[in-house]
């Protein structure tokens, strides 16, 4: 089992997401950095749908009561096992009784912790992810607390593995987010669309959580003849909505329906970056067309496939 000594600022159980019940409003609630999640499970030799811990903030620590292989991906952290510094994006072993502590984050915002022994949790509506707002999934539908214990599913160790440095994504700001056009792009004046899509700098406001990220900066201008609300409609993660005040909200993985004009979507290739936007960070958008978005996504998938093949080769 693992025993939480300190849960950091906020730590929750996540997986690849909850799908199939969008028609009754069930959102994905998945790991926000899907690349980090996918590689983490590969590093600790788990199946691709295993539950892991998504953590925000330093000062996270836990103890294990069995020998286990562990890894941390996502944000670049300063961490140690029993005062021995460890490398993020690397599989390392923890001996029975040892304590892992994440002191601080060097770059990025959210990090992911996984275990070769798996975590014994109950899947709810086909997923281990925590829906914090509605209090189901994960561990009792809530964030982890000091003293929480989660038992291991089995006893296995993973072979050493390491992600070569050039494959670790940069999480430094300003974050450059490539976007594709949304269904309501014509709701806005040409000047404000141009400014938005070609380099206007936005700042991440204090209003950010797993539901969405509100940005501050030059507001978009609605064309005069149009109502700023739309008839509420289905949305997908990465949708950028513009409410009446003209300031963008990037929707993450906790909503299925939206009622504001959707100017654009963050291209899938850059959606993992959204996990690492934090208060005060600078963000700029760059419009690309769908063909480019598709080919960028395809290359990213190919590099993941390649990375999985070489992850154990360099050790």
């Amino acid at each position, binding site marked *: 089992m693992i025993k939480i000594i300190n849960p950091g600022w906020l730590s929750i159980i996540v997986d690849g997401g909850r*799908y*199939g*019940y*969008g*028609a*009754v*409003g*069930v*959102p994905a609630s998945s790991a926000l950095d899907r690349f980090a999640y996918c590689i983490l499970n590969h590093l600790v030799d788990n199946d691709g749908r295993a539950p892991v811990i998504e953590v925000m903030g330093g000062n996270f620590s836990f103890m294990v009561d069995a020998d286990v292989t562990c890894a941390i991906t996502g944000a670049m952290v300063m961490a140690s096992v029993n005062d021995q510094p460890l490398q993020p994006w690397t599989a390392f072993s923890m001996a029975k009784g040892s304590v892992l502590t994440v002191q601080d984050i060097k770059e990025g915002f959210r990090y992911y912790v996984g275990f070769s022994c798996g975590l014994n949790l109950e899947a*709810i*509506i086909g997923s281990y992810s925590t*829906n914090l*707002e*509605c*209090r*189901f*999934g994960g561990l009792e539908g809530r964030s982890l607390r000091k003293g929480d214990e989660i038992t291991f599913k089995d006893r296995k160790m993973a072979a050493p593995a390491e992600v070569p440095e050039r494959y670790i994504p940069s999480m430094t700001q300003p974050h450059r987010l490539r976007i*594709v056009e*949304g*269904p309501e792009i014509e709701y806005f004046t040409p000047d404000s669309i141009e400014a938005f899509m070609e380099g206007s700098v936005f700042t991440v406001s204090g209003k950010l959580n797993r539901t969405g990220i509100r940005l501050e900066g030059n507001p978009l201008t609605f064309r005069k003849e149009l109502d700023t609300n739309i*008839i*509420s*409609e*289905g*949305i*997908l993660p*990465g*949708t950028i909505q513009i409410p009446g005040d003209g300031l963008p909200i990037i929707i993450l993985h*906790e*909503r*299925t*329906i*939206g009622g504001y004009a959707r100017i654009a*979507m963050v*291209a*899938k290739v850059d959606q993992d970056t959204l996990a690492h936007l934090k208060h005060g960070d600078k963000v700029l958008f760059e419009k690309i067309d*769908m063909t480019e*978005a*598709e080919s960028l*996504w395809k290359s990213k*998938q190919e590099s993941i496939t390649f990375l999985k093949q070489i992850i154990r080769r360099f050790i």
Partner: protein
Amino acid sequence: MQIMKLSRYGEDGIRLLFGDSINLEIHAEVRRAYFFLKSLDLKEIIDIIPSFRSCLVHFNSEMTSFQKLATFISWMKPMATAVDLPEPKTYEITVSYGGEFGPDMEFLTSHLKLTEDEIVEIHTSVTYTVFTVGFIPGFPYLGILDRRLSVPRLETPRVKVPEGSVGIARLQTGIYPFDSPAGWRIIGRTDQKLFDPKEEPYSFLQIGDKIRFLRI
């Protein structure tokens, strides 16, 4: 029959649009398309979100492409008329209106120039249709609200309203299934449980169901 317009929504979404207003004919087409696509049980489709006038199809871009799936859907569409639609269920939901349960009632009486009894009378006089369920699990978007009760949403949404709160906004009314943030004007509260993650089909209400509110 409404014409279906097909368009892209990001790299892995297809938006099937059946019209541009809130009405029961358009919604019936949305519902038909939703149950039809669901009945095909395609492994390429990750999820479908039906709403007032559209279905948003989320597909697996590693297994298919927009072109392929869109062509397939357009080709299959005429067969949607043959799908067996589930019979919509009709429910009565009891509500405690006003007072501590309806913090916006006072604003509404002055804004709408109606008494509390008149507001309740109008709200309980309509059989509503569940146009869509979502934003959060189990939240029903119910229409069509009587024009006399049409009010804009709150300028600044409340950070939290209690589970079961009944709200109105424009020509819609709805029920918050969980303690959650809320931008609609709250007029009452119900004890009806709307979402149970432990038991299929999880949501008490499904698209197309009918509801009448009763005053306790």
